[in-house]
């Protein structure tokens, strides 16, 4: 926990400085000394102060409440999380081009396989899931899910 605090602190401090710097460019409310930059200024300043406090605390090595809440060690598969994030990115990039009915089963399939569902089962559920969501959102709720290359079959 404390090791992550160090570089999280650095990132937060940088973010805070950027926010403070950007805040000075925002205009004031007419007739007032303050304006659109006030809240970002407070937020940025606050982030810098908190980031420094985090850094100081982590280098002092003092134990603090957050340590006690640390989770017990578990097996971790970050690979699966990455595939799931990738599936959503794929959806964002492809949905308008190839259409919901093609991109959704691919995303589902990737996610199922990432979670170690067997291939036949994954294929089945990818199809069932796509049809379910299509019926629920496109047919019942009338959400204009993209058709993409399937437009001619619409």
């Amino acid at each position, binding site marked *: 926990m404390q090791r992550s605090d160090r570089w999280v602190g650095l990132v937060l401090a940088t973010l805070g400085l950027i926010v403070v710097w950007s805040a000075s460019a925002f205009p004031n409310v007419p007739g007032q000394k303050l304006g659109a930059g006030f809240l970002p200024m407070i937020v940025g300043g606050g982030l810098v102060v908190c980031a420094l406090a*985090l850094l100081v605390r982590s280098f002092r090595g003092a134990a603090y409440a957050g340590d006690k809440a640390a989770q017990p060690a578990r097996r971790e598969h970050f690979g699966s999380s990455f595939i*799931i994030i990738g599936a959503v*990115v794929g959806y964002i990039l492809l949905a308008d081009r190839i259409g919901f009915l093609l991109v959704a089963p691919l995303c589902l399939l990737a996610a199922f396989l990432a979670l170690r569902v067997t291939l036949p089962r994954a294929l089945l559920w990818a199809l069932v899931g796509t049809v379910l969501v299509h019926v629920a959102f496109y047919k019942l709720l009338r959400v204009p899910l993209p058709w993409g290359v399937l437009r001619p079959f619409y």
Partner: protein
Amino acid sequence: MDAVATAFGLVFQPYVLLVILLSAMYGLFVGAIPGLTATMATALLVPVTFFMAPVPAVAAIVTATAMAIFAGDIPSALLRMPGTPASAAYADEAFLLTKKGQAELALGAGLVFSVLGGIFGVLVLIVAAPALAEVALKFSSFEYFWLVMLGFTCAIFIAGTDPLKGVVSLLLGLLIACVGLENPAGAPRYTFGNAELTGGIPLIPLMIGMFAISEVLRFASGLDKPAMAIDRPFGNVFAGMWVLIKKYKLQLLRGSALGTAVGALPGAGADIAAWMSYGISKKFSKEPEKFGTGHIEGIVESGAANNSALGGAWIPALVFGIPGDSITAIAIGVLYLKNMNPGPMLFVENPQNIYAVFIVFILAQLLMLPLGWMAIKIAKRILRIPATVLMPLILLFCVVGSFAINNSLFGVIVMLVAGVVAFFMERWGFPIAPTILGVVLGTMMEEHFFSSLIKADGNFLAFFERPIAAVLGVLTLLIWGWPLFRRLWARKTAVAAA
């Protein structure tokens, strides 16, 4: 009285009743599956409620959350895995009872005291909200500014274990709220020339990301399969409940009261209410040595507390537009979408809608007895559904739901980024609740701050001139000053001792 009759008419329609029944079943299902939280249930419901009239939309959320918080107790008793974080406080206790062959007692107490606690919370909501709204009608921007500040303060100092990280979370939320045109000067902030960003970060996709996508990612990063602790059919779960109610009436009352109060505090919800109640129950118990060995007393008190917190959380949400927990934070988003802007005027202009919400609350608690009983009966079958199949389906649902709010892929992008950020925040010990509070209340705080400042002509002391504003302001400053004061005091006594 007309409004009450209208409210009954609004609720007792086949369509609304069907929505209530379906969302009850949905809430029980989601609550019972470990890894799917009550907040996630709410976030997933929003895209669907988006297409409903205000009353059924709110009814769906109220019912689903009440059921989900109870249903979280089921896998606690059977798998030692809380179905929702709100059941985590007494999951071990319930599981040990099951091990002792008393699964019926653990599950029955979970159900009955959830209902009783829930009803307590609703009654307080019904009495307190209109009374508070009367007072709130006289509030000006000064009072609202301090209320929001007090809300932030509660979320950081009461709800979190690490105030420093809580402050960081809040600041990140406020930063997100800064994005867009909606600020006192009407200047574009952090829009980077993007047309979608000028409207600000859309709230609902953000919440779906923070509460649902982050859970999917967490699930994917650690697959553990728990073992079922019981393989015989259940007996009568209601046996012995009357004895428990009589024996533990004080605990029931204390848990419900504490739960409602914690629920009403911004940023702290059912899960914190349960933890606090469990602790208090143990502290004041006549037999504290039995806690942690499969003892029902703690389940009675904290089981009542987590359900009463739901009603409590709606008090500040309806009266001030300040969410009492993450669930009401999402619900407030829905209220705005439905043109039921929360605030005291809602009680004046649309009392029938408020009464309808109250009626739904009571209905949901009453429905919980039969439906909860059925859920327990089929629990073993529900729990056998592999989460590895559910999670990808939820993922697709989140994607399409985030898209549906504005029919824009921008919502999906917001959802994904929010989900990844929330996943890492939780990993590194940064609480999510203050961030959500910052996003929901950031614009409101800035608006009230500037209108106060203009009224006061730049004089900061004016923030303390009105009596209620002064009390709220001093209270806020005292809570912030308390850690510093305590440290100084400790140093002083240490010096005196040396």
